[in-house]
């Protein structure tokens, strides 16, 4: 199977995330940047599919120079090839532009399955996967907690996580699959993987290479715009449940209210 997985470099999960006040884009310069944790699940699922059915995994990212590290991590984990769409004109792209640009890179790869994770930990929009499927003109199977492929039959079946359980959803190849973190346990790269990654093909593309119209790229062509931003308000005080013999029931009610149980 020809599998494509999208990856993104994001500020370290534990770092304080800020916007660059000059252009209201994510500040990536003052923090450590890592492969989006959710994407590790996507890469792992892509590798598991490859291990089960053969084929090839291509990791694709869009981002500044340093973002190539996210692709490299995917290569170290075991992906076969990498594509890095890197162009200053793409800086400040919104979700629609990002999805459209990624589609331009991914479509020529003719994937059977495109794996995306449910969100990146920086913007947390959670829409690029869905938009990408639209731009690619492919069906999308989202919130997958389990993926089973049947390349012979040309289908993929997923268990789609719902609030109360899961739904079994079947889709025809080629397809975009969005995975959640319950799906697997991402592997750590081995030293062999780290060494091998150096020799794997990694292509850097400009916007022109990908056929992206320069006029549509960047903030000027964006469909959305960030006008202003406020720092996250300080954490509000929690709710104290006083136990008057019914503490357990109150706690359960609270958790049920928050849809945690």
């Amino acid at each position, binding site marked *: 199977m020809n599998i494509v997985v999208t990856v993104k470099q994001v500020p370290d999960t534990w770092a304080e995330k800020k916007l660059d006040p000059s252009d209201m884009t994510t500040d990536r310069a003052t923090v450590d940047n890592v492969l989006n944790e959710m994407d590790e699940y996507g890469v792992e699922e892509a590798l598991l599919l490859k291990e089960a059915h053969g084929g090839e995994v291509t990791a694709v990212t869009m981002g500044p120079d340093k973002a190539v590290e996210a692709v490299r991590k995917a290569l170290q984990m075991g992906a076969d090839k990498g594509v890095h769409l890197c162009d200053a004109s793409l800086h400040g792209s919104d979700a629609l532009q990002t999805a459209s640009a990624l589609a331009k890179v991914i479509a020529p790869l003719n994937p059977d399955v495109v794996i995306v994770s449910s969100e990146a930990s920086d913007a947390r929009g959670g829409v690029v996967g869905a938009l990408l499927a639209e731009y690619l003109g492919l069906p999308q199977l989202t919130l997958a907690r389990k993926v089973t492929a049947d390349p012979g039959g040309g289908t993929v079946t997923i268990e789609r996580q719902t609030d109360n359980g899961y739904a079994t959803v079947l889709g025809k190849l080629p397809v975009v699959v969005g995975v959640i973190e319950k799906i697997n346990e991402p*592997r*750590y*790269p081995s*030293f062999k993987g780290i*060494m091998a990654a150096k020799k794997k093909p990694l292509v850097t593309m400009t916007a022109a290479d990908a056929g992206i119209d320069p006029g549509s790229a960047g903030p000027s062509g964006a469909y959305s715009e960030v006008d202003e931003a406020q720092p996250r308000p300080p954490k509000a005080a929690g709710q104290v449940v006083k136990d008057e013999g019914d503490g357990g029931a109150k706690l359960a009610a609270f958790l049920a209210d928050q849809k945690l149980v």
Partner: protein
Amino acid sequence: MLDFQLSEEQETLRKTVEEFAREVVAPQAFASDESGEFPYEVVRQMGGMGLFGLPFPEEYGGMGGDYFALCLAIEELARADSSVAITLEAGVSLGAMPLYRFGSEEQKREWLPRLTSGQALGAFGLTEPDGGSDAGATRTRARLEDGEWVIDGSKSFITNAGTDISCLVTVTAVTGLGVGGRKEISSILVPVPHSGFRVSKKYSKVGWHASDTRELSFEDCRVPEENLLGEPGRGYANFLSILDEGRIAISALGVGLAQGCLDECVAYAKEREAFGYPIGRNQGIAFKIADMEMRAHIARLAYYAAAAKMLAGRPFKKEAAIAKLYSSESAVDNARDATQIFGGYGFMNEYAVARHWRDAKVLEIGEGTSEVQRMLIARELGL
């Protein structure tokens, strides 16, 4: 000029193990320290990452890295949990390395892939109840009888011999008398479990609780003659050369522990307040932590330098002894200071510094005591 910057691959490996240590190793450290249970699941994942194969070529299931790569991994694991770090150190440098260095092609093919994948563990039985550093005191004997070695004796403080995945013990034994009546000592491979071979229950130790340490006994334990490892009579000499490089790995372990103490203290000194401000603002605390940083830094450079010499094929005995000695004493010093900085919490087992404190002491004893290291250094100086 010298450059101790890690290469891109070394740094990636270090970061990967650091991440693994933080996410997987550290969270189980307290529980396995309390229970003394061997961390099978952690070891399984380490095997998957190829850590047990780091310094071995791919043809034996290794990762094609080198001994320094192994040291980097050991250091990062020891920042979180010394029991896990020593399991890797002993598994590689005592379990698999003697086979790789001295084994026949057939022995290597038979045993190494299992050991380098981490699916199974090997152990080395050298120390005996009556002596470790003194080769002449070896009492375990092996005699040839009908094409078999018959081994009798016992070994003390042996790591990785009694786990569910232990598959091999290399044992040193007196196999005859050489020139001038000196004992001829050879190494023999004993697949385990094996009739005539028994492991004691686990020792009750001060630290390294989750590491598997046992006393071994051999009673009419018979293995085929071809299980001899290396040349007859070279058992002790071979093992000494293994110990030289093992010292660099133990040094890395000490650096990891020293760094782990430092990590804990820096965070704690910023967060813990007394008299209305963080305790790190007190020089009494800050200077202690500065000293901890200095020791960890120098100790790290010492093992980097020893490893660099070793990998360049130059003599490194003295540098390895210095690295091992300085790192282990730094680990003990940092652990002592860290528990002091943590105050009452430093005496509570659920705090990592308390565990580091208990785990540190053995570093001044195992794989050559501090006294032996000083003796080696002095000898290298012609004294």
